[in-house]
């Protein structure tokens, strides 16, 4: 595509007025990349090596913050566990749920547009309101879920007030919110060429075989994209802790980003909080790297035509 549209060769590779226009257009991007992205990234590293509290001028203390974080910090271990546990449940749950719904919506059913729109509704509601609203459904004595449990003869569960249920309960909300994944999956499914399915059907392949050998491989780039985006989003989880649980009960929902918030903006340990930030960054980078590394093995790329 690119080569066809290239205008005739000019004497110089770059036309100076064209380049000038480009740089003018890119001023916002330059500002953003420098001041909002890469400079702050270096800033995190720098500040994490100091004991800055926001009151006194910062002193360089080497890796003390990191040492303290991994040896004496009372929260970090619970925090990492809570974050990964939450992200694991939410990512798996949202992926399975949204793929399933997208498969259903991909069939020729009436009112498809309207139904698709319904699954997307939770995504456009303000997060804070969602958590407040769900806290009522999860309420201990009169909440809807406990009514359901009592109907099937099970004991009351405290959901967000019980340290062993709080993370799964919050994950369920996060799955409920994943309507955007459905829309992307659905668009992908509609791009799977029908001829493959027809050919396989002629050869006598059943629905399950066709799903495994045709649908999944041709959807793999989109599965990868959704997996990546929902992993990055869920590992940064913070809003439920801010709006609802305050990290509790105990430390069971003290997600890493909430821990960082607490250190920096409640206890004013800015240097220390930056060390935590870097830990979150490292965890995210590790997960992303693993995903990218393994992707070549399971992503089927037809004719290498991507982007």
């Amino acid at each position, binding site marked *: 595509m690119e080569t066809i549209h290239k205008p005739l060769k000019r004497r110089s590779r770059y036309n100076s007025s*064209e380049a000038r226009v480009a740089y003018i257009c890119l001023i916002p991007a330059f500002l953003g990349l420098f001041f909002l992205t890469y400079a702050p990234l270096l800033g995190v590293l720098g500040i994490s090596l100091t004991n800055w509290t926001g009151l006194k001028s910062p002193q360089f203390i080497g890796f003390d913050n990191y040492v303290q974080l991994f040896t004496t910090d009372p929260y970090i271990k619970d925090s990492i566990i809570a974050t990964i546990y939450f992200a694991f449940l939410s990512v798996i749950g949202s992926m399975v749920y949204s793929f399933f719904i997208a498969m259903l919506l991909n069939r020729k059913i009436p009112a498809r547009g309207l139904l698709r729109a319904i*699954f997307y509704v939770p995504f456009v509601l303000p997060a804070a309101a969602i958590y407040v609203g769900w806290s009522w459904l999860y309420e201990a004595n009169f909440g809807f879920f406990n009514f359901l449990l009592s109907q099937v003869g099970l004991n009351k569960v405290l959901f967000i007030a019980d340290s062993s249920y709080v993370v799964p309960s919050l994950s369920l909300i996060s799955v409920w919110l994943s309507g955007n994944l459905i829309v992307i999956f659905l668009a992908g499914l509609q791009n799977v060429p029908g001829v493959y399915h027809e050919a396989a059907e002629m050869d006598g392949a059943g629905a399950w075989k066709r799903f495994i050998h045709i649908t999944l491989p041709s959807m793999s780039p989109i599965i990868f994209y959704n997996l990546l985006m929902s992993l990055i989003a869920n590992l940064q989880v913070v809003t439920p802790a801010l709006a609802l649980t305050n990290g509790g009960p105990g430390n069971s929902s003290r997600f890493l980003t909430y821990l960082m918030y607490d250190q920096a903006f409640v206890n004013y340990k800015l240097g220390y909080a930056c060390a935590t930030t870097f830990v979150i960054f490292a965890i995210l980078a590790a997960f992303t790297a693993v995903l990218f590394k393994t992707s070549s093995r399971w992503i089927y790329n037809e004719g290498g035509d991507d982007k």
Partner: protein
Amino acid sequence: MSAAAYGRLRSRKRNERMMNMATFVVVIFCAALVLFPIWWIFRTSLMTNAEIYRYPPSLTPDNWLFSNYEKTLQVFKFWKYLWNTMIIIVPACLAGTFTAALCGYAFARLRFRGKNLIWALCVGSMLLPAMVTLIPLYIGWTRYLGIHDSYLPLILPYFCGGGAFNIFLIRQFMMSIPRELDQAATIDGAGYFRILFSIIMPAIKPAMIVVALFIFIGLWNDLLQQMIYINSSDKYTIALGLTNFRGQLKSDWSLTMAATCLSFAPGVLFYLIGQRYFVEGITLTGMKG
């Protein structure tokens, strides 16, 4: 076609229709499940407290107590919060969309030295989690610029292209606009900006609306940054106001749910208006990302 083959085809067709009907029923059921929490919140907002605590709970309120909303509005300053939220969102959406279009144009259409490097930095920053830059940015705004208790730290970043993701989205969309259009305009003597404003921008309107919607949702949901930068209660946004309101009225569930429903309303309204673009835009991110 032999009679047997024809029969097979017909039974397959019938089978498929049956399957589609079964699917339809399952989808309706799932959709009802998705909407149920919202309904439950709404029905609670219209009940008396006695009704809420009744066992078994009923699906609909006995009397639709819209007076709960009047009561809520006396404590929960919804209109004030909505106004405050809009003061942040409207300039951010406009500026973010406009600057993203400028940057996207440079990447999609123009040739200049260092393009690949700058593009790589842009794409790279997309993978950088937003919370990593939170503390340095906070220090920058409050210490170096002395900006406290203000909306500026929430708005001004959107004057810088509205984030790499939005630039990326616009660029991808622009690439799909045929270049012959700009070439024809060039021949007619239009300059680069003229082409951008009068040819490309109208053509990428769906993508621009999508970017505006993404910025809207992003700001709408960003409780963390609002908590950090806004202190005084008369500057509260909807998200902050609601979180705070819940703390005050811990046990009055019907009023809390009324406040929750009020907070839902603008998002739902916005979605109903822009539904088509939402779907189109999300599809765009998945297909072209």
